[in-house]
């Protein structure tokens, strides 16, 4: 992105405007489609403006971690596919995609939305592994929120494959993945000392800092991550928390 675009975004924000004419507390239009991939146990497609993310959930049976032998295993991975942006290159995950995965993972894990204990088949030996794969198809900013929304939408919709004679019978199902909460992640960006939500790609390039807040059904905070080279004051963070709790409630209505 050219420097001039960054400056333009900043100047607009100083005049209380956004490059796509949204209000500072508005998400872009969000469209969610569920069950879009037949081969996955759960899936969702999220369009957040022009940001397009596909999330697939695959279940398999494996060994639990030795320190939590009676819980299923959760694994989140993000693929920044080269189809999604001229800046994405093929190859192993880089720090950006690792951060996205880990922040989304934290929201899901810490909210305890998946009842992982129910995913234990035989303590210490066999548990269900929940693989959440976030596939970014078009990157127009705010991949964390779009990915997290896709992940929770897909999880709420995931069917449990049958497991018989030590074999997973893909395509045959028995019940749904045990879910008990709906965590939502909301990212708040800071440009020219002003806070705005759901930054698009032009705004992301002009961001001084961002903070992602994951909230649960009760409106409690379950994960936080600050990013970017700038800073937040305590007052700004407090405002960001309030805003995330509010927006989390709104988004939760959209998906459940």
């Amino acid at each position, binding site marked *: 992105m050219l420097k001039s675009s960054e400056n333009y975004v900043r100047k607009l924000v100083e005049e209380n405007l956004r490059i796509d004419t949204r209000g500072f507390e508005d998400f872009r239009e969000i469209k969610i489609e569920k069950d879009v991939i037949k081969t996955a146990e759960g899936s969702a497609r999220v369009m957040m403006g022009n940001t397009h993310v596909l999330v697939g959930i695959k279940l398999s049976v494996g060994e639990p971690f030795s*320190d939590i032998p009676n819980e299923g295993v959760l694994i989140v991975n993000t693929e920044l596919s080269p189809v999604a942006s001229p800046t994405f290159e093929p190859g192993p995950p880089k720090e950006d995609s*690792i951060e996205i995965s*880990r922040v989304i993972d934290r929201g899901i*894990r*810490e909210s305890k939305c998946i009842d992982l204990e129910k995913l234990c088949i035989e303590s210490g030996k066999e548990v269900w592994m929940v693989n959440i794969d976030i596939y970014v198809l078009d990157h127009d900013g705010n991949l964390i929120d779009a990915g997290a929304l896709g992940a929770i939408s897909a999880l709420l919709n995931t069917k449990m494959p049958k497991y018989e004679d030590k074999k997973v019978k893909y395509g045959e199902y028995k019940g749904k993945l045990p879910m008990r909460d709906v965590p939502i992640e909301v990212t708040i960006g800071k440009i020219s000392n002003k806070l705005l939500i759901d930054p698009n790609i032009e705004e992301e390039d002009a961001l001084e800092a961002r903070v992602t807040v994951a909230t649960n059904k009760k409106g*409690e*905070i379950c994960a936080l991550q*600050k990013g970017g080279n700038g800073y937040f*004051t305590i007052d700004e963070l*407090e405002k960001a928390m309030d805003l995330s709790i509010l927006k989390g409630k709104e988004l939760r209505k959209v998906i459940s």
Partner: protein
Amino acid sequence: MTKIGKPEKMIENGKRLDGRKLEEFRKITVEVSVLKRAGGSAIFKFGDTYALSAVYGPRHLHPRHLQDPQKAFLRCRYSMAPFSSQERIRPGRSRRATEISKVLKEALSNVISFEDYPKAGIDVFVEILQADASTRCAGLNAASLALAEAGVPMKNFISSCTVGKVGGKIVLDVGGVEDQFGDVDMAVAIIGDEDKIVLLQMDGIITRQEFTKMINLAKKGCTEIYEKQKEILKEKYKTGEEDVEVE
């Protein structure tokens, strides 16, 4: 779920498992100039958490395509020694280490005067030699001192500590067993004693009110760290170079 080996009470009579008060740090140990070859180096310990940081540069940056004609380029690498934890940590880049390296770099970027060294590279290495929670904070505190000792122009220090929720209570400086069995762990870094938060990571469930309490406690803790950082540098330059003219 009951976790294996979880103590019955994390806090008893206002005292934590290791005898600390709720808002009390573990013993903090700081040393600067601990390595011979590095431009700057420091050790920062929170109790049994032992972080070593070394700074190389500003120096010629390779590969060249990373060079910026306007300013210096900062690289940061956090890693944990294989023997630093109960269970051996496999050498090589983990996803956790990659993420922490990124947030440490972003935090330090706030205070370095990059414009003073166009085209150059500054490398900050953080090695956790012994881990007992709050490693990223100890690493950041050490890195700040190492950068200062390396003579990298900085606007201020980055000072960092953790706050947490253990046994339902808000505590300062989460220690080993508390990290494992506590409810919440939040890492915060601040520019010196200013109202500027440059690192914030949390996992675990807290209410909105608890956030306010925790962030303010973290600010207080970071200010205490900041005083320690200033003190140790002043001390070093007082004893090491007594004949230097003081303004």
